[in-house]
């Protein structure tokens, strides 16, 4: 049978972000896969170098739209290490709380996306409906739904009140019940099992060799979790389990994420019931002393690492961001090969990719020679002309 090469991306309904996978097909079977990234390089690392630390916080937050708190916490921890700043315990607890709420939101989002990739839109709608609960919590704490802007160097910007605490605990009970339902669903619905079991196999040694992180690694029976292995904030005082699965496939990744939700609820309750008293931030000078620091954080997608070097001015000398997806990339090509085309979207989605975080960092490109750009007016004119040629006149419709 002749081979067909199918491009998956950079624009494709399965991928919500730009990444390119060239799949060589023999019938339905994938015999070769190449991964190409770099479509969304935004120059964040370079941009950080000529902004002040406070401005960088909000820039770093925009590395990722889902794990915004992970990146800022990681950046703050690296900067605080470099400048030898001690963060109050209450601030650390609030960081843990928001980090876990974010993990719940991210995992529920993933569950929905995974459902959509295997054509199970009902699961998608249900899990996103439930995700609103946790988004409401985050909105209540921080005032924003996605980019919480809660971290600042030396602490957090907003405190948790008693009413908020009660409200969050109430919503966590609802979510826990829903999560248990999803566990049943994932392990009992035959079509989900048919699409998840044995798909995208990644054996333990291969995961270790290719440096897989996060739920991808844990589903390959590799108990690697920064929260346990390199405890930061208050994690060494909190009680939680590292969830692993030995099935090494998409089903394992699904199970690991859903059970991690339960662990997160446990953590959220622990933090809220035992919130340390005290200030929520310390005063930090604008100019930080010279030094360097590494932030190490378990984002919902896996290990996130930031390196910050300060040079005594109010701007950093170098900020390096390594988002979790990049570490999982060499595993994708391995998992795709030998699989079916129909499984490609779910295999890619199973690492919960976030290409824009991965690429982070250069500038906007505008018109180059040979291309042209259209202004709003030009577009409108073009549209009116087209419809006029079809016999409909839109020219009197208001702008």
């Amino acid at each position, binding site marked *: 049978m002749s081979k067909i090469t199918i491009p998956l991306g950079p624009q494709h309904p399965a991928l919500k972000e730009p990444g390119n996978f060239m799949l060589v097909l023999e019938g339905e079977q994938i015999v070769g896969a190449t991964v190409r990234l770099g479509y969304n390089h935004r120059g964040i690392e370079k941009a950080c170098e000529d*902004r002040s630390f*406070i*401005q960088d916080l909000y*820039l770093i937050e925009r590395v990722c739209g889902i794990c915004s708190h992970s990146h800022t916490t990681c950046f703050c921890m690296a900067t605080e290490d470099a400048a030898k700043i001690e963060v109050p315990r209450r601030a650390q607890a609030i960081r843990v709380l928001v980090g876990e709420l974010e993990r719940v939101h991210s995992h529920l989002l993933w569950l929905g996306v995974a459902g959509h990739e295997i054509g199970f839109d009902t699961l998608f709608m249900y899990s996103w409906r439930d995700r609103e609960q946790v988004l409401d919590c985050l909105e209540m704490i*921080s*005032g924003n739904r996605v980019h919480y802007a809660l971290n600042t160097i030396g602490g957090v910007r907003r405190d948790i009140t008693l009413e908020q605490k009660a409200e969050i605990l109430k919503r966590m009970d609802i979510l826990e019940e829903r999560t248990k339902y999803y566990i049943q669903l994932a392990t*009992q*619905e035959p079509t989900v099992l048919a699409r998840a079991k044995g798909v995208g196999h990644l054996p333990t040694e291969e995961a270790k060799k290719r440096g897989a992180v996060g739920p991808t690694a844990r589903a390959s029976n590799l108990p690697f979790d920064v929260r346990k292995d390199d405890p930061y904030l208050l994690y060494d005082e909190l009680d939680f389990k590292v969830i692993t699965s030995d099935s090494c496939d998409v089903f394992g990744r699904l199970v690991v994420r859903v059970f991690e939700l339960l662990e997160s609820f446990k953590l959220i309750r622990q933090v809220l019931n035992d919130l340390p008293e005290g200030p929520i931030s310390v005063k930090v000078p604008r100019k930080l002393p010279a030094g360097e620091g590494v932030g190490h954080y378990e984002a919902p997608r896996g290990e996130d690492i930031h390196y910050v070097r300060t040079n005594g001015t109010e701007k950093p000398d170098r900020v390096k961001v390594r988002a979790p997806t990049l570490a999982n990339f060499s595993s994708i090509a391995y998992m795709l090969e030998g699989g079916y085309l129909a499984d490609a979207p779910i295999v890619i989605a199973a690492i919960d990719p976030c290409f824009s975080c991965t690429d982070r960092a250069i500038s906007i490109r505008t018109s180059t020679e040979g291309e042209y750009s259209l202004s709003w007016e030009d577009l409108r004119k073009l549209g009116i002309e087209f419809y006029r040629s079809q016999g409909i006149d839109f020219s009197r419709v208001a702008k």
Partner: protein
Amino acid sequence: MVRPAKMLKELIGSLCTEPITVRYPYQKLRMPPKYRGRIACKADLCVGCRLCVRDCPSDAIQILPLPGEKYQFSYRSLLEGKKVNVQIEKPGRKKFKAVIDLGKCLFCAQCAESCPRKALLETEDYELAALTKDRLIRTYEGDGKTEQ
């Protein structure tokens, strides 16, 4: 343990309840207190330190001095033999206006935090879409109620 049609009960339940969707333009969303919506400015309180401008991650805010109030009087000059108008600025604090470009704003409210006089506020206003870019630029003078 495999159970086909696992969700059937839930589906029927969903058919019998109201949709979860908020029918937005007809039904407004309720924002929690301290929601970070449009940033407003009580320009009366502004002392023109421009800390907000310095901290804004996206250059969305500008603080511009307002021409102060003036005493105006005129007298007939004996030397030139004609009427001369004289303006003298009233003594007192200088006034400022804030120009905030909502197209650039990130709604992080760092400016509200940086402001030593708490002149900048977070509001619960979230319906900020506009058809043209220039309508996204809001100017605040006086007590913050007036805007363009």
